[in-house]
């Protein structure tokens, strides 16, 4: 069991957890992930590491509600526990010693680029961050990102904060502004990572994206997370999660991630019904 020492609701559907996991906090590196289980009958879900504090022995992760398991996770409060936490898994991000690295975070992907930005800062490598959200209230971890990156560019769809437009437009602007860009790391929704790959390809800039296929063990044993990269099957859990964006078969990955769509919908429906019943019962109990 892994105690949750601190939480912060970042948006209505995104929550930050600081979890006591001393061995992982010590061994973890930017770009890696952990596997979590919420309860004893729960799924194993991969979650990218947002931050590590080896002294305090804590691992920070950010979870966005998309289905039943992530909703159950985000219902956990400070002082409660994750049933399991295993890691750090995957290969760390290759942190450049020099040059200029641009990290792009779409939605809650902004949380995933934080550890990489901090890693670059520790190596005194010049870094820029571009984070995108629909609207100003959904921009997450702005303070921490600003502290970690040399420059932070916020993009919102509605222009309520920073640049009005998509992260790819900002990225294109940055690339063509004259300041050299040596590497791009993009983490976020699949459509955004694909769009970043399409943006950078004509400029021939090395671009890494972090993939999140379906996983079970996360240690190479099951092969659920196989992705086609450069025409070869790779296991995202041990060969990734970061891969060269220009070589990924995104269509295959999008399709494979829909394998359990029916079951996921059923589980969500079931969770929400149980949740409603629990709320009704609580409301009934407080009625005079």
């Amino acid at each position, binding site marked *: 069991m892994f105690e949750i020492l601190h939480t912060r609701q970042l948006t209505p559907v995104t929550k930050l957890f600081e979890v006591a996991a001393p061995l992982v906090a010590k061994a973890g590196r930017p770009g890696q992930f952990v596997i979590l289980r919420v309860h004893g009958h729960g799924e194993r879900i991969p979650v990218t590491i947002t931050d590590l504090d080896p002294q305090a022995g804590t691992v920070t992760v950010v979870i966005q509600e998309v289905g039943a398991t992530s909703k159950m996770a985000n219902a956990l409060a400070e002082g409660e526990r994750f049933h*399991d936490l295993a890691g750090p898994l995957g290969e760390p991000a290759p942190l450049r010693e020099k040059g200029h690295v641009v990290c792009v975070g779409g939605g809650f992907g902004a949380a995933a680029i934080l550890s990489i930005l901090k890693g670059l800062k520790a190596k005194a490598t010049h870094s820029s961050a571009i984070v995108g959200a629909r609207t100003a209230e959904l921009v997450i971890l702005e303070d921490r990102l600003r502290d970690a990156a040399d420059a932070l560019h916020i993009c919102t769809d509605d222009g309520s904060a920073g640049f009005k437009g998509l992260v790819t437009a900002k990225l294109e602007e940055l690339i063509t502004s004259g300041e050299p860009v040596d590497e791009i790391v993009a983490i976020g929704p699949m459509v955004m990572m694909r769009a970043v790959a399409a943006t950078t390809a004509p400029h021939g800039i090395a671009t890494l994206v972090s993939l999140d296929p379906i996983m*079970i063990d996360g240690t190479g044993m*099951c092969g659920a997370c196989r992705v086609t990269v450069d025409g070869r099957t790779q296991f995202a859990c041990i060969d990734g999660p970061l891969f060269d964006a220009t070589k990924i078969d995104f269509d295959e990955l999008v399709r494979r991630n829909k394998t359990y769509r029916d079951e996921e919908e059923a589980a969500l429906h079931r969770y929400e019904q149980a949740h409603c019943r629990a709320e009704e019962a609580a409301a009934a109990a407080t009625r005079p």
Partner: protein
Amino acid sequence: MPVISPSKTPMPVADAKERAKTFREVNFGYDPRRAMQEADRCLRCQDPTCQTGCPVNVPIREVIHLTSQRRFDDALALIKRFNSLPGVCGRVCPQENQCEGRCHVGDRFGPVGIGYIERFLADWERLHGSQPVEKAEPKGQKVAIVGSGPSGLTAAGDLNHMGYDVTVFEALHDAGGVLRYGIPEFRLPKDVLDDEINALVRAGVDIQCNVVFGKTLTLDQLMDEMGYEAVFIGTGAGLPRFMNLPGENLNGIYSSNEFLTRINLMGAYRFPDYDTPVKSGRRVAVIGAGNTAMDAARCAMRAGSEEVTVVYRRSEAEMTARVEEYEHAIEEGVQFKWLNNPIEFIDDGNGWVSGMRCQRMELGEPDEDGRRRPVPVPDSEFVLDVNNVIVSIGTSPNPLLSRTTPGLDTTKWGGLVAEDDTGQTSREGVFAGGDIVTGSATVILAAGAGKRAASAIDTYLSQKRGEAAEA
């Protein structure tokens, strides 16, 4: 004097039609009367060849004799001096190739049911409570066991018994390794596994789950910072192999490891009470004919599939599955297509597998391992309609270990180099055994390797103690 039956006392089993729909255990086990009746069939040979067939060298003749005298506790205590997992091994060992394969009664009448008796004794203890095990004086030396599969648990049990301070590190959230994620409930109920693991914990073995060796903790950390004087590595076989055929990453195509892990470790057959789902459509093809393939095929039947077909490029004679599993699979309705090889997976138009193009094979000249090599029959292609495919053609070594643990010699196929008699690796104080050394093998061979390594670790640490005392 009771009449001794010439033939093996039958194992009561669940009805094939009924059991093919549930995950409850197939074999019910002997009762005391049947166990003693079967034990009476033993000739108590001068030269007990059965024992030499056992990878952990259980004194089978004596065990059987004690059983025939109704001294079940004594019989089990004797087994446990050699094997910490009798409930597991009585169920999953390929006895026909080991103890029972060498039984002299078997020369004429079918061998004594040694596995069934072993299982009975373990179950008897589960029902009637266990005897306290005496433990040697604490030796004050720490040993780390990496992996809680059959080799790791066996090594842990033996070393703990010898008085060492033993910690087992397991990557998954539950201990047992392949016994947990691979072997299904209907062959090895998880209660039996839990009881045997709990017995080790009660005896003093510490088990830490969620520790991924090389990732969460490294070998150097264990030995240099945490004070472990010896380490046993039993991390198992590793990566599932695929065939690199067109369409292999279509939705609905599993490795047997994934399919079985979903069902056994994650409880997917109880979805939605357990959160992890599994797909087992109307028609399922299982590629390969080893024990894992049989487990996958039989799980698919139970998970609701109507037609499950094992497709194998060789013939029945070359199949590597244990006979009982094969027979049970046939009884439960699993079909077999021998001498057929898949060459392509067909897309249903939405990214799901809908068919498997196969070609017929015939057996040619023997290859290096003496089995006749299958060769394609020209113009013999056909399409098998399928909703799911389970690829069960073995594993290759997990690169996690070699990437994260430098300084250990590996073989050309990528397994760890370890001496056969001792498990000694290329690094002092580090031992290894089980599938990480041999490649995919059986539970009891892994247990045997764990046992030999435990003994070698004892020798090594005794020597270290001696040197420390002299200094």
